[in-house]
């Protein structure tokens, strides 16, 4: 690893924090309305970030090419988000404000995010609620007709707006519908069942992408004035995660190989309330909304190895450990804190359930207090889902939960305008690194996706178009041919190996290794071991993977092989990043760096920075560039939720 002296310009506007975005908006250059139709924008991904961006850019007058691997834009994984979206509307009069939301988010991210980005996120949160309500998103309401709120992990105010346990679905359908309106108007062209396999860069600018039609196998070139990646996170590197099966890192990782910087890949969020794994055939983990922690109480037995049924364990033998250790936040402690606490009690042998890997999330007291009917009204669909998966009735026996990989805070580096270091390549939503620091608080992912897509990118992309000379490139550009050749070559290679193992078997093997060595906690020894073993997996993969069928057809094993190959390379980058960051912060817990009480111990002297990795081509040893984080408005303090 070489640390480069290069200075990255995050283009953060001057001036007081609360005026930065307004001033910047006033200073950005504009594209005249009659010129907007001359520009084409590629948006990859149709989740909350990509969908809202595509709809808004088309509405402004740009031509939008929208790509997704699913059969419809409406199926992007944002749809599965259950809990809610944060906005400091202060409807409850419980003391919320932009300032407070900003502070919670900075602190929640363990002081590893950019002040200016986070402030803008919280500032625009209120507009998002207005926007979504106007679209007809049916948020939960009080009997008086006003919007309802609830509290979420990491916050002491009720600032979370929700639509039962299906907030992501309702918000996504809102922007999907806005997209379809623009499809009808002829401003968006949809490319469903299409996978981005490479980024085309010419003279340092992103000018297009190479895709594969997943039905016909056709490899195609698409040229545009700007490329927007809204491709989500890479949590599936662990194989088992709460992400949809198709979520992958390929688009981002190809961009990284073409020169975009990958930031903080070791920051992965482990969500505390997932249904524990049951067996070796499992394909994914299911998250239970964090909102359950509002009413559910987390506990395990006080004695290790207690095999009694939960209703046979009297209160005096129960350890409500979150309430005990973190009395002021209790069951609502932030995700990284709650996850590690669960791991600790399981490691002590106090885990519950048939595998011993799990803790109880108990609604007995809430049902006693509010009645089963009220609990059903609040969480009914989550309870049904739990019952379907586990065959246990959570109204009668406590749920069993355990942490799982959920969200990735790392991603491609972007400046304040959400543009990567490659001009013309924008990265929004979970695919970028910018807003959540080392840990993401609940109900802020949906917010970031929509803020980026509806209210930030549509301004900043115009500024890029107005400042840079318009592209005169077309898909005939030689860089397109080279990129197409790279993609076709890779496909040919996969098909020619004809080994013995399925792509999925490699993915599982990789996932287990990364979870063990770079999961909920890490140490130098384990990371070094992983960095040594991943190249072995890579070598075996490229020698022994079995891909059946042809390239000119719908081919599942070919898709899996391509994604697994990128996960292997990404996993190595993650481990290198985790090894270099010799501190604990948020979702990155280095065992060598903890307090006497087992809490994360940051090192602000040495690591108050963003780690940006620059690919060295196929050489697995990338270079590191540091973007120092400057805090002018908050005091870096140890996070305490006690």
């Amino acid at each position, binding site marked *: 690893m070489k640390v480069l002296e290069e200075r990255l310009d995050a283009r953060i506007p001057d001036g007081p924090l609360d005026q930065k975005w307004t001033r910047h908006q006033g200073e950005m250059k504009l594209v005249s309305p009659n010129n907007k139709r001359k520009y084409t924008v590629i948006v990859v991904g149709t989740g909350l970030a990509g969908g809202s961006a595509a*709809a*808004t850019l088309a*509405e402004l007058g740009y031509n939008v090419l929208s790509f997704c691997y*699913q*059969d*419809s*834009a*409406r*199926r992007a*994984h944002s*749809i*599965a988000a259950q809990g809610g979206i944060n906005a400091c509307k202060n*409807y409850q009069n419980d003391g919320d404000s932009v300032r407070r939301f900003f502070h919670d988010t900075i602190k929640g991210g363990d002081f590893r995010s950019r002040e200016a980005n986070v402030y803008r996120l919280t500032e625009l949160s209120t507009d998002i*609620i*207005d*926007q*979504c*309500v*106007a*679209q*007809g998103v*049916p948020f*939960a*309401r*009080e*009997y008086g*007709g*006003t919007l309802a709120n609830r509290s979420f992990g990491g916050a002491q105010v009720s600032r979370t707006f929700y*639509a039962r346990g*299906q907030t*992501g679905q*309702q918000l996504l359908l809102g922007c*999907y*519908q*806005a997209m*379809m309106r623009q499809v009808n108007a002829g401003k968006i062209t949809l490319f*469903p069942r299409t996978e981005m396999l490479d980024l085309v860069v010419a003279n340092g600018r992103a000018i297009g992408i190479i895709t594969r039609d997943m*039905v016909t196998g056709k490899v195609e070139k698409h040229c545009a004035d700007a490329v927007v990646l809204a491709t989500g996170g890479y949590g599936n590197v662990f194989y088992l995660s709460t992400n*949809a*099966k*198709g979520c992958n890192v390929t688009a981002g990782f190809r961009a990284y190989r073409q020169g975009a910087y990958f930031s903080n890949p070791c920051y992965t969020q482990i969500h505390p309330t997932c249904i524990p794994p049951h*067996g070796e055939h499992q*394909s*994914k983990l*299911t*998250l239970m909304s964090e909102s359950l922690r509002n009413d559910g109480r987390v506990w395990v037995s006080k004695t290790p190895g207690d095999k009694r049924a939960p209703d046979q364990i009297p209160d005096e033998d129960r350890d409500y450990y979150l309430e005990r250790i973190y009395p002021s936040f209790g069951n609502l402690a932030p995700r990284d804190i709650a996850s590690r606490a669960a791991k600790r009690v399981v490691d002590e042998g106090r885990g519950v359930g048939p595998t011993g890997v799990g803790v109880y999330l108990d609604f007995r007291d809430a049902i006693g207090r509010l009645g089963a009917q009220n609990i059903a009204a609040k969480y009914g669909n989550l309870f049904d*889902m739990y019952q*379907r*998966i586990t*065959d246990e009735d959570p109204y009668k026996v406590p749920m069993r939960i355990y942490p799982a990989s959920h969200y990735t805070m790392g991603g491609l580096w972007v400046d304040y305008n959400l543009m990567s270091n490659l001009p013309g390549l924008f990265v929004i939503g979970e695919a970028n690194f910018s807003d959540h620091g080392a840990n993401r608080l609940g109900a802020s992912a949906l917010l970031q996706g929509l803020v980026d897509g509806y*209210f930030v990118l*549509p301004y900043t992309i115009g500024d890029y178009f107005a400042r840079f000379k318009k592209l005169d490139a077309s898909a005939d550009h030689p860089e397109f041919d080279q990129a197409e050749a790279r993609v076709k070559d890779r496909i040919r290679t996969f098909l020619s190996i004809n080994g*013995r193992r*399925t792509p*999925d078997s490699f993915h599982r093997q990789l996932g287990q290794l990364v979870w063990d060595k770079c999961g909920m906690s890490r140490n130098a020894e384990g990371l070094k071991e992983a960095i040594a073993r991943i190249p072995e997996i890579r070598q075996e993969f490229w020698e022994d993977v*079995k891909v*059946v069928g042809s390239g000119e057809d*719908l081919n*599942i*094993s070919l898709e899996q092989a391509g994604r697994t190959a990128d996960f292997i390379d990404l996993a190595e980058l993650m481990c290198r990043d985790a090894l270099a960051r010799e501190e604990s912060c948020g979702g990155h817990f280095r065992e060598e760096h903890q307090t006497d009480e087992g809490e994360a111990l940051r090192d602000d002297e040495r690591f108050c920075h963003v780690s940006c990795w620059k690919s060295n081509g196929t050489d697995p040893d990338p270079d590191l560039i540091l973007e120092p984080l400057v805090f002018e408005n908050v005091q870096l303090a140890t996070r305490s939720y006690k």
Partner: protein
Amino acid sequence: MNLTLHVWRQKGPAAAGRMVTYQARGVSPDQSFLEMLDGLNEELITKGEEPVAFDHDCREGICGSCGMVINGVAHGPEQTTTCQLHMRSFEDGDEIYIEPWRAEPFPVVRDLMVDRSAFDRIISAGGYVSINTGSAPEANATAIRKEDADMAFDAATCIGCGACVAACKNASAMLFTSAKVSQLAKLPQGQVERKRRVLNMVERMDQEGFGNCSNYQECEAVCPKGISTQNISVMNREYLRATLTGA
């Protein structure tokens, strides 16, 4: 448990399809139906055969991707999505017939995968509120009765999986279309375009080749989200109102 699977294999929309029989061994009752098919596919790939193509993604019952007809019932014996169907719903030694959604407007892409883009075109015909970004009024400026918001929500939970079409002997898309129509008709935000919306969406639905509703209510019986056929009545009223009074 050990199972005999009869799976519909079809290369493409124009190709002829046929049932192919496979044995699934060592299936755990805790596996989901899709995980059982994953296992079959792993075996097929190892043997050098092409895996069975099926749509799936979130595997949490919400994205609406998955869907197949299992033993003659859309999504199988439980009223849920195929990804949330677990093998404990079957017995050791069972024979299971697995087919794609069969409806003319949903051409088979391959095996169990069908093309449901007709649903997207119905939404693009009017299933939205034409609000421009960035100029929305304050969210609490319009109070909405909780009962109305809840009813709109009940309709809005449709995941667009297409089971309603697959279950209907007329291949009607009325449950899907009516869910969106009645969601937006219930809310003040949807009023301005209320009449035009229902006319355009119904027209599109017919153009796509979906059949009419003849009140068999099979759609409601298989809908994984319990969307009520009352929405169809709402849509019929909305349609009548729009045709009588003009959009």
